[in-house]
């Protein structure tokens, strides 16, 4: 398997040169970084190049890196796609950062893989990443009239508003949330080798 991945990395280097970051192999998966400016060109080549042939976009999702442990600067938002080549039977992860943290913007992939349509709508809905050139960039999963982007790390898990039926007005009303935020298990990052034999603690 790893020989095959090496071959894929070699191909990627040959075809793209410095248009993409250095392909990295970890956990038997290849990850490639690309700049937003080259994103579309690289995607088209990935799809059409006979030795790459990533015909399918398996998945595309947003991510917010703002609170990751050990993160040293860098852009906050990224769109990560998982590509699949049915012809060559290999997968690739493509990561593109949105450089502007305040209004993240990326080019759309809907012209390359039509399946990107809803995935980009979801990333827009959840993270507020705007995909330029998307034909129909509406919210998809959240409620009609929802405010904010819920999967951002600064959005509380309990949200800002709750909904209830108001018997006096005889309709459903929105009001600020009444539940207190709580954390049952705190988030803990231990030092490397924590709990391993020979280590301390």
């Amino acid at each position, binding site marked *: 398997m790893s020989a095959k991945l090496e071959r894929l990395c070699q191909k990627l280097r040959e075809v793209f040169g410095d248009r993409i970051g250095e392909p990295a192999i970890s956990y038997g998966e290849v990850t490639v970084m690309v700049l937003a400016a080259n994103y579309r060109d690289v995607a088209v080549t990935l799809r059409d190049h006979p030795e790459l042939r990533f015909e399918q976009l398996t998945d595309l999702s947003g991510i917010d890196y703002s609170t990751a442990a050990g993160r040293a600067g860098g852009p906050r938002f990224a769109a990560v796609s998982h590509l699949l080549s049915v012809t060559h039977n290999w997968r690739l992860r493509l990561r593109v950062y949105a450089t502007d943290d305040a209004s993240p913007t990326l080019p759309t992939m809907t012209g390359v893989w039509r399946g990107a349509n809803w995935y980009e709508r979801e990333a827009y809905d959840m993270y507020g990443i705007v995909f330029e050139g998307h034909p129909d960039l509406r919210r998809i999963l959240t409620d009609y009239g929802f405010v904010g982007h*819920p999967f951002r790390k600064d959005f509380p898990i309990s949200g800002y508003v709750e909904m209830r039926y108001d018997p006096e007005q005889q309709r459903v009303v929105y009001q600020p949330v009444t539940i207190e935020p709580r954390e049952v298990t705190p988030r803990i990052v231990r030092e490397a080798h924590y709990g391993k034999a020979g280590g301390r603690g």
Partner: protein
Amino acid sequence: MAEIKNYHLNFGPQHPAAHGVLRLVLELDGEVVAHADPHIGLLHRGTEKLAETRTWLQTLPYLDRLDYVSMMCNEHAYCLAVEKLLGVQVPIRAQYIRVMMDEITRILNHLLNIGTHALDIGAMTMVLYTFREREDLMDVYEAVSGARLHAAYYRPGGVYRDLPEQMPQYRVNRFKNDATVKRLNAAREGSVLDFIEDFTNRFPAYVAEYHTLLTDNRIWKQRTVGVGVVSPEDALQLSFSGPMLRGSGIAWDVRKKQPYEVYDRMDFDIPIGTNGDCYDRYLVRMEEFLQSNRIIKQCVEWLRKNPGPVITDDHKVAPPSREAMKGNMEELIHHFKLFTEGMHVPPGEVYAGIEHPKGEFGVWAVSDGANKPYRIKLRSPGFAHLAALNEMSKGHMIADVTAIIGTIDLVLGDTDR
């Protein structure tokens, strides 16, 4: 002459043929669909966000609630992702159990799909037949995990417990007399494996019954042949997977092409369609019944001969046995730490995709080394398939929309996450 305008029709969110809470805004030109705009998210529970606030183990039961007709397959993808990050070895017996339960789940899922799809487009009887078999398999679910639906049976590192020695039996009550109970218990005298084996022997005859009911049924063919045709190129472009992709004639199955667990030791075939319409996809699913049945048989045979552990003995990942925990201080600490703080997963990111009954179910897990996931992205097959609803139903009659919703095997829990 009066001007004729297209009009909009609201289909759902509460409609029996919408398979859950799907709201469909249809723009109609007479009875012909001009544009279909699915509004989803009515069942959105923010599973991915919830996962970020739960430990790696606490997240697992949420996966059951995604596609609530193929529970164990959802868990499977998640467990594979976590195991890949942790580098844990899963005992071989657990791998066989997982493969067997995955295939049982596939049969369960397709039984529901074919039953309700037929129900939606007018064949009332079908669902009565498929639910008869679902009942048996649901009993297997209950016997191994204690729950008929939300099993939480797969755990990172293996499965929660070994298959029980005794299949639960019916008892006499005021609704079931002696004779009935005796008949119902005939297959339940032995272990769960005996019951499953008995089922696999009976099942091909049941599939033959479904074929008799539907395959050459004139009305069924009128409603499905040539409806919702997807070309192979379009199927790839639209991120299709599973039976939807195979129905269009692309021989792609993760179990064969990128085998996980012990699928590489299994002997089975991949059915593919030729026309890419609803009828071909139906035939693909019907054939998958028999192929799954074959895999289950092979697993039962292996599992009978090879006892062994079913979960890893790495107590940073899986709890020690109750017995060990009560007699040994170290095991007690392990148990306590695992269930309070949880396991620590090394930093990194992995994607684990499995051949879920509906298509490819993938989990993209990002860890920053904490006891909770940093980001979990669930790639659900139904989401990509529903996104193509507009393209598939354009130009068809409104009644065909129901047939297309049936064929994409829609479960909104999976689509909305």
